[in-house]
């Protein structure tokens, strides 16, 4: 069985960044396994602009952003295999993959980086009532048909969910000549980035129905209409508020789920909220030597943040290879009132270089609010925040010397002064 120092599962934005960073930190025996026919992942179907503002201080399309990393990867001569689907991962880091040229192959790795990304939540997962005709897709699938295969899936479109892919597709399909009749969002606030609400809906006069959901889908062969209704504060449809739209297409943008089938197979512990692995400051999972980054760990808003996380995981994996990571439990992090989750979930201060970035999401809209940080239950810091929303990931940077004295838990809380 062939052996590698690091095997990276997934050649999208997280996998590419982690490979390059691991290489730069001294690991030369790296293999990236990518299931699609080329590297780049979902970036390849994101032909709109807006990628790279943080990383490169310029606005790139998805494929152009991916190209920057792919070029660098090729220059460094990092090995990768496309059309290669990983079908098994064991906790002793044996990876089985399959491709048309080699068949079924097993390789052994000293370290593994999980970078499989996420999948879209489907109609099935949210059990939308009605018929089950053709014409219903997740926004990302419609995006692939349009941007990669060259086919428009419909002419009169409704979108459920205000996730970013749905918003981007509202604009994209409008530009292709389709009529987008509206976007319904279950929550009283949008789940997309403010700039996408502005640029993809408002600029095209596409109505956004907040606190609405779909209560019926009609049409036995192809969808021909759907009914939306307002929901109450328990998110249940209110009788009498129904509106019907004649459409031939329904797109869903109702959330993303980290793709952790392989992680579960390797007995990696997952977090209830993020649906990704529980990781420490080094992005190492509950299984020693297996790291995770990008959307397989938790769903990000911007690809720039995915790349940045990939780099951290790549650097940590390289340190692990060199025996520079110490294994110690450290302290826990926790989200208190108003906080959905905090990541990393555990911190071993010995492995922190000069600072640590804690990522978290709030559970509702906060205006003129504060973030309170507690060390072992004692208030340590209060930070003012003008605006926070679940759709926008927040970041808290703490210096190493600020966290060295924490014994058991670092807590974050959202609230008002």
């Amino acid at each position, binding site marked *: 069985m062939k052996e590698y120092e690091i095997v990276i599962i997934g050649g999208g934005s997280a996998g590419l960044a982690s490979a390059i960073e691991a290489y730069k930190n001294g690991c030369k025996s790296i293999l990236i396994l990518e299931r699609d026919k080329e590297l780049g992942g979902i970036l390849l179907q994101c032909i709109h602009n807006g990628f790279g503002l943080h990383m490169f201080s310029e606005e790139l399309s998805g494929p152009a952003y991916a190209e920057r990393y792919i070029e660098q990867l090729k220059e460094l001569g990092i090995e990768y295999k496309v059309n290669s689907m990983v079908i098994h991962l064991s906790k002793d880091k044996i990876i089985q993959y399959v491709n048309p040229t080699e*068949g079924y192959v097993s390789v052994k790795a000293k370290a593994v980086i999980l970078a499989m990304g996420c999948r879209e939540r489907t109609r099935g997962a949210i059990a939308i*009532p009605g018929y*089950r005709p053709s014409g219903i*897709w997740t926004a990302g699938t419609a995006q692939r048909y349009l941007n*990669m295969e*060259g*086919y428009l899936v419909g002419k009169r479109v409704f979108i459920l969910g205000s996730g970013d892919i749905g918003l981007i597709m509202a604009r994209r399909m409008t530009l292709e000549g389709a009529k987008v009749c509206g976007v319904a969002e279950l929550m009283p606030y949008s789940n997309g980035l403010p700039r996408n609400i502005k640029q993809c809906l408002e600029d095209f006069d596409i109505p956004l129905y907040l606190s609405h959901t779909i209560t019926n889908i009609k049409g036995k*062969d192809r969808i021909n209409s759907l009914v939306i209704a307002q929901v109450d504060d328990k998110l249940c449809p209110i009788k009498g508020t129904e509106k019907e739209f004649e459409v031939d297409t329904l797109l869903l943008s109702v959330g993303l789920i980290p793709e952790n089938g392989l992680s579960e197979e390797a007995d990696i512990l997952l977090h209830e909220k993020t649906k990704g692995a529980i990781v420490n400051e080094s992005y190492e999972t509950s299984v020693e030597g297996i790291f995770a980054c990008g959307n397989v760990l938790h769903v990000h808003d911007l690809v720039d943040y995915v790349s940045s996380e990939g780099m951290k995981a790549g650097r940590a994996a390289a340190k692990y290879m060199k025996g520079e990571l110490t294994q110690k439990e450290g302290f826990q992090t926790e989200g208190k009132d108003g906080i959905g989750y905090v990541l990393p979930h555990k911190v071993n201060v010995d492995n922190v270089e000069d600072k640590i970035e804690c990522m978290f999401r709030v559970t509702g809209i906060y205006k003129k609010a504060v973030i309170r940080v507690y060390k072992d239950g004692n208030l340590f810091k209060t930070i003012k925040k003008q605006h926070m929303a679940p759709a926008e990931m927040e970041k808290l940077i703490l210096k190493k010397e600020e966290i060295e004295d924490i014994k058991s838990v670092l807590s974050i809380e959202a609230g008002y002064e």
Partner: protein
Amino acid sequence: MYDILIVGAGIVGCFLAHDLSKKELKVAVFDREADVANKATMANSAIIHSGHDPLDNTLKAKLNVRGNEMYESICKDLGVSFKRTSAFVAATSMEEEDTLDMLYQQTKNRNIPVMYLTKEEAIKKEPNLSDHVTKVIELPTTGIVYPWEVAIALAEEASENNVDFYLNEQVEKIKKTQKGFEVITSKGNYEAKIIINAAGVCSDKIYGKVSSKVDFEITPRKGEYFVLDKLKKPLVSRVIYPVPSSAGKGVLVVPTTHGNVLLGPNSEMVDSGELNNNTKDSLDYVKKEIHKTVKNIPMDKVIHSFAGVRPTSTRHDFIIEEAKDVTDFINVAGIESPGLASAPAISEYVINEILSKKIRMNEKNMYTKRRPNIKLKEMTEEEKNELVKKNPAFGKIVCRCEQITEGEIIDAIRRPLGATTVKGIKKRVRPGMGRCQGGFCEPLVVDILARERKISPLEVRLDGDNSVMLMEETKE
């Protein structure tokens, strides 16, 4: 002139077509759907019941018991899945315990294996059994199948042995003639000596095309279900029934042949067999009832919901008889639960009790067995690599969730009576059945279908002719 013309390519029509293909007969099967096994056979609980439940002295009781005996060897012969999982019937109150005792006695009387379990024994076997359960009987002969896999395999083998299948073709008129029948469909005219009406929810209407004295009515009953993702630790390893009531067998928890779990069904009278939509009320009902017998059900692992319509008849038993007013017109109607479990026995009954008295049935000398599906998941690594060497398409995984290769999809299209639609591929090899519900693989499947069938992707259909998928090309 066909000797026998079957209307309806569900599980009953397919069993009959298959069993009759062994005889020196000219047989045709008609269905208005784009594929075989597309209605009730496509949406049911997928259980081969033991035969414990139907009322005494019914065809349902008789044919269910016989069908259960027949299934395992038939599935083995066809190369399709069958698993004798066993089943629990779980009571949760004193009143239900009384019904359970009656059920035990009825089952015993039919010589079906059955035993009482203490609560401790039951929980040892099924750790997720609800704490509300007070008493359990086990029915070890209960099994599960993949219903449309069985029907498709039967149809394939029938087709290999010269049965003609006419799909996407609606029977519009049936005329009794001197020699038999003239059948006018949406696409042509046909003649047949004998007609078998196995048209499911439409069987009363099909009968009505040739008779003015239709002596039963189909009163469709809809049932809705959830499908759970494959779990790391199985939720249940047996079928879990609640104690039956006048409304039917109740809301079940059913392991499937592919490691998923079905939760459902409810039971609701509907006006038409076409009304197979999901409703919030019904799904909410299933969600509530399901906890009666099983705990720790991870509802966040639901990947799909569906509804099926059962062809319940006003006679409340299977109707398997020659029409009283039309000679050589045989009704096989009202085949609701336990229709799937009884299907092979229904076919046997129709052939032995009815057809053999009407038409000479010599066994064919030459009979071709169907080539079993290529199932990579069941092969050793060496076998798989041999296959990839011969055909690299078996090394290209199209569906990540179910790990289905391009080679398997191409085979599903090229087989006799092969898949012609996206749903047809999903039914035969499962891309789209997993947790991403086709989000990743559907564009690839559309591409393969277009290539193999030499049509434009714009012409690829999800299911029937009107289930258009892609609307227009954007690339120059």
